[in-house]
């Protein structure tokens, strides 16, 4: 459902992604692991539609459409979701209002009926139980004054409400204690289905104990240097990224 081919991306003349290929099919969970600065978050931003990057070559297709031509809102309406690494605080915009506006904007674009206040309340409170968030968060401004863990839960809540067809989780585990991590993972696992795909971006293997991936990619310096199954993540955890830094590319190909 998400197909990336030979993607090259730069920021102010510095190339960050140097030819990425990815093919994620419905029902699959892919993980991308890599050290800081390897280009993981740039990839997430490109998929979601941030415009402060320059795509110099390659393509990104989602459900057969050229994603790079679409505005971020149109991508979301097609069913794409990004859980932000750093969710943005939006003072003055109430969380409940925001969620309802987002869901109804998507439903409207898809030709579905908008939910009224009652229907939405039922949906959102159900989803809040799933991520163990208190209803009080609905009345607060979006992410304002939320702790790191609360912000990440709020991302998963949004995902649960919007029910995307494909979700990118950008370092959703960072800053979470083990209980919050489990809650977040439960929220994701509850949404796994044969129709839905996930791309989980993480620095550590820890998250992948709870969200078990079908495919694991290792990203270094703007390239995917190795692809394997969940065992690859464990090897990485045990031996560290240095393994891949020291090994030239041909050697890695043997493992892949």
């Amino acid at each position, binding site marked *: 459902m998400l197909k990336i081919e030979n993607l090259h991306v730069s920021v102010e003349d510095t190339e960050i992604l140097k030819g990425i290929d990815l093919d994620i099919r419905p029902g699959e969970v892919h993980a991308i692991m890599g050290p800081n600065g390897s280009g993981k978050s740039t990839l997430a931003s490109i998929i979601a539609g941030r415009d402060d990057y320059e795509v110099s070559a390659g393509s990104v297709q989602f459900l057969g459409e050229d994603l790079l031509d679409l505005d971020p*809102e149109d991508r979301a309406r097609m069913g794409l979701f990004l859980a932000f690494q750093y969710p943005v605080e939006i003072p*003055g*915009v109430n969380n409940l209002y*925001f969620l309802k506006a987002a869901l109804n904007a998507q439903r409207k674009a898809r030709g579905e009926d908008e939910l009224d206040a009652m229907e939405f309340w039922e949906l959102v409170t159900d989803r809040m139980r799933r991520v163990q968030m208190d209803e009080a968060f609905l009345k607060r401004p979006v992410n304002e004054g939320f702790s790191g863990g609360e912000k990440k839960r709020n991302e998963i809540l*949004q995902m649960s409400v919007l029910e995307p067809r494909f979700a990118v989780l950008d370092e959703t585990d960072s800053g979470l204690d083990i209980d919050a991590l489990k809650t977040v993972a439960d929220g994701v696992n509850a949404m796994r289905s044969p129709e839905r795909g996930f791309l989980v971006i993480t620095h550590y293997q820890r998250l992948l104990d709870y969200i078990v991936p079908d495919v694991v990619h290792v990203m270094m310096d703007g390239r995917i240097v190795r692809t394997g199954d969940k065992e690859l993540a464990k090897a990485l955890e045990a031996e560290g990224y240095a393994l891949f830094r020291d090994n030239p590319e041909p050697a890695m190909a043997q493992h892949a």
Partner: protein
Amino acid sequence: MAELADILEQPFQTEFQKLQGRQEPAFIQTLRQSGVQRFTDLGLPHRRQEAWRFTDISAFTGHQYRLAQPVPLAADRLPVRSSADAIRLVFVNGHYSPSLSDDLSALPHGVTVTTLSAAATEQADVLTAALGQAPVVVGYPFSALNDALFTDGVVVHIAAGILMEHPLELVHCLDGQAVAAYPRNLIVLERGAQATIIEEHQGQGRYFTCPQTEVLLADAAVCRYHKLQQEAAEAWHLGSLRCYLGRDSQLSAHLVSAGGRLNRTEIMARLDGEGADCEFNGLSLVEDGQLADYHVCMEHAKPHGSSRQVFKSILNGKSRAVFDGLIKVVEQAQKTDASQTCRNLLLSRQALANANPRLEILADDVKCAHGATIGYLDPDALFYLRSRGISEAEAHSMLVFAFANEQLESLDLLGLRQRLEALLVERYYPSNL
């Protein structure tokens, strides 16, 4: 007849001359004479003066405005009540309109509300003791001008310990071409008294209004004050707000400016008793061709006082917002806790905001914080909303509305709040109508 050049040089002198021979109590005559003197000394401001560097009023020529005469006004021109239980007094062109005002005969015990003109005889003791006694807005010619020429307004007196439950709504309407009004309000809360005041300004035509309000809070008095300005597009509004806060008294003020060609309100607040608390919440909605200007002097004169100022502006088209805020802490005002924030949201490349936060602190054990920002909408916030499926236009509206609406969150007058929210939606969030 005087030479034109002379009139230009000495604006309002013809108005001042008409003051001669008016039958008024001596203390009012004295106040007027002092106003004439101070205005004549100060003259009309110009941009070479520091306080007027960013506010160009060279297009304002005082002599073309003559004192407005009373005119009838249709009741449907009045704003929706700030609160269902508000008691309303209406002034049209500076003159009291009994037919548009509520009955004042059944006010609670200890509450006196009269017009300034009636108070000169009925409330002479209050007036003598209080009128002109609030701290002076130093160097501001329009405060002096109001002292000289004030026409009518409201005198509110709440006796010690009395809680006035009904909000008092003072509506000043202007209607006419080349007319001027000088409304004057006096609000006196005795020890422990409480009141809610709403002062509204609106109008139609091309006019000049120069209102002045004094708020005097005795020890432990609590006042919630609101000033809402929605003047006509060609109006000049040059107002003054002078506040005196006694020991443990509280003043919380909401100031909203949404109309007029040029409007400036200068505010002087003196926290003159220990533990006084003062809060100003300002919101300027400035459209193409408009200028909104708040000048604030928050003076901490006694220990343990606290003050918070949050002033926000939203600027559209070729508009301008000016904020100048001074926090002054005298040597003995230890343990003062003062903060000041000024935030400006630019919606156009032609808009211009000037923020000038100033501190003058002579005490050594105080907490003072200030900050000012001027900028466009946060691109990260816009992207975040859009990434959830909200259109760019909708995300834009939502953020602008939110920026402004935060200033209304502490507003507990339902009618006023709904009216202002509706105004924000109309201006910044049309898709949500």
